[in-house]
């Protein structure tokens, strides 16, 4: 999978504790350039904490990780410049238009005015925005917003884009169009790190990791995981690993000091 190329994410025993509660428990993995990694896990399994460390927002307790070649302890600003990020909850400014959002994020990431104009025209055509380009984001259907948010998150050609439940609540056609956009970016070399609760989408990833109670319990191509667990689908693999862990996870949080 990674071939001779340097991994764009390399984590070794990456750990984060809150008091005595271990949210992320010594996870180790590599992600290759242009790979789509599906980062799955039950609610409370530690996905968000892991992503916050990898995006330079939260210092690890122990272990190491390099993201786009930068250290998660000492080079967090360089990491932030090298990545894109979008989530279901926050992506674009709702009272700005699509054009204004593109301009805003382009400016933040240091694109020239000429480059921003060019990107705006390109995106308008690619996403078939038409007059929606000059309407406030809040008036656009969610699926559209998410496609635009993704395009904006990769505007500055980051090495990696982190997508936190980008397709939650999105209609089934637009969900698939969203994945087409992801494939396109991955093909151009951008690494895609994505979380989802839609198990059919897990099958679209190059590799899938499944977090349970802070650890990565499974990591491999969808085919490998299904073979290893003698399962017909990733959904089945997931259910087998994650079933019954909710109460246990809550209980371990309780044992820990308040976060």
């Amino acid at each position: 999978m990674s071939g001779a190329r340097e991994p764009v994410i390399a984590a070794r025993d990456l750990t984060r504790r809150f008091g005595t509660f271990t949210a992320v428990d010594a996870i180790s993995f590599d992600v290759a350039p242009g790979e789509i990694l599906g980062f799955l896990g039950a609610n409370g399994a530690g996905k968000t904490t892991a992503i916050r460390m990898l995006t330079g927002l939260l210092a690890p307790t122990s272990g190491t990780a390099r993201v786009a070649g930068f250290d998660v302890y000492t080079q967090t600003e360089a990491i932030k410049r090298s990545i894109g990020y979008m989530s279901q909850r926050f992506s674009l400014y709702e009272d700005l238009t699509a054009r204004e959002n593109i301009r805003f994020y382009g400016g933040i990431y240091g694109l020239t005015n000429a480059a921003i104009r060019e990107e705006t025209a390109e995106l308008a055509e690619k996403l078939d925005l038409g007059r929606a380009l000059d309407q406030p984001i809040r008036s656009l259907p969610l699926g559209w917003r998410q496609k635009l948010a993704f395009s904006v998150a990769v505007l500055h050609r980051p090495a990696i884009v982190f997508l936190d439940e980008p397709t939650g609540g999105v209609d089934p056609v637009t969900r698939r169009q969203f994945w087409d956009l992801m494939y396109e970016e991955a093909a151009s070399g951008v690494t895609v790190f994505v979380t989802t609760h839609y198990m059919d989408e897990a099958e679209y990833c190059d590799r899938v990791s499944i977090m349970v109670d802070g650890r990565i319990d499974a990591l491999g191509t969808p085919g490998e995981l299904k073979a290893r667990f003698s399962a017909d689908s990733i959904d089945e693999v997931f259910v087998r690993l994650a079933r019954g862990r909710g109460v246990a996870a809550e209980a371990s949080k309780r044992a820990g000091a308040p976060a």
Partner: protein
Amino acid sequence: MAASVVATELHKAYGSTVALGRVSFAVEPGELFGFVGPDGAGKTTLFRILVSLVVPDGGEARVDGLDPVRQYRELRRRLGYMPGRFSLYQDLSVEENLRFFATIFGTTIEAGYDLIREIYAQIEPFRDRRAGALSGGMKQKLALSCALVHRPKVLFLDEPTTGVDAVSRREFWDMLSRLRAEGITIVVSTPYMDEATRCDRVALIQEGSLLGVDTPAAIAASFDRPLLVVRTPRRLDALRVLRSYEHARSAWSFGEDLHYADTRDRVEPAEIARLLAGAGIPDAVVRPATAGIEDVFMDRMHGTAAPGAAA
């Protein structure tokens, strides 16, 4: 028996945006009735009208025989509502939240306990924890307990499983099946097509309009074109080939597989296998398939895409 929930030509617009366009349906007593559709389809507006929080611009509704506009006081005693956004008091403990809701409905936790026992038992070990400190799945169980503590006759759950992992989603639907067995009418909305199969009947909703109301089996069976499942490691290439075929109605990814629908009345799997082989994809496995709700939804919404959206 009179219907438990009736909507007649319900209509609601916000400015020039039609949130709900003359929607009519009826839910039978004791039915588990699902609204399946994406975010922004109008599900939340519909639920808010039915639970008396929003007044419709037109049409009317009856919930347990009462008009949500004029008889809202009496109605609120008889319904339970779990909004899409977590709306409990974050700085009250689990038990305090439940006691609070019991008190404002003039009852006690103990009086309603047999109904919520199975759900509440799972969060009871954490009864002293602040609600805001619970994880997603636990918050959702607490919210359901609070919506049930006064033993409502009709329960409205607005996207209770959005953002919830696949295992917790299953557990949640298991709970709904048990509540249904208690005779409570349940109206639930979801963006997950797979959850539709767990309802007695389903309304497909898109852009404020119903695309159809029927049992999950009947909706799935209404797919009227031949459907094939295609499995190949070269999924994206195959998708392109299938979509450009002259007889293609649609081709979409479905997890590891592709679903191909043909415009003709019949299509042999061998024909599609040959088509793919001719395009340099010799290893595809093609077989006939039965459509699911997601196939039907995508097929029906195709003609009703958002204004300006790629057709």
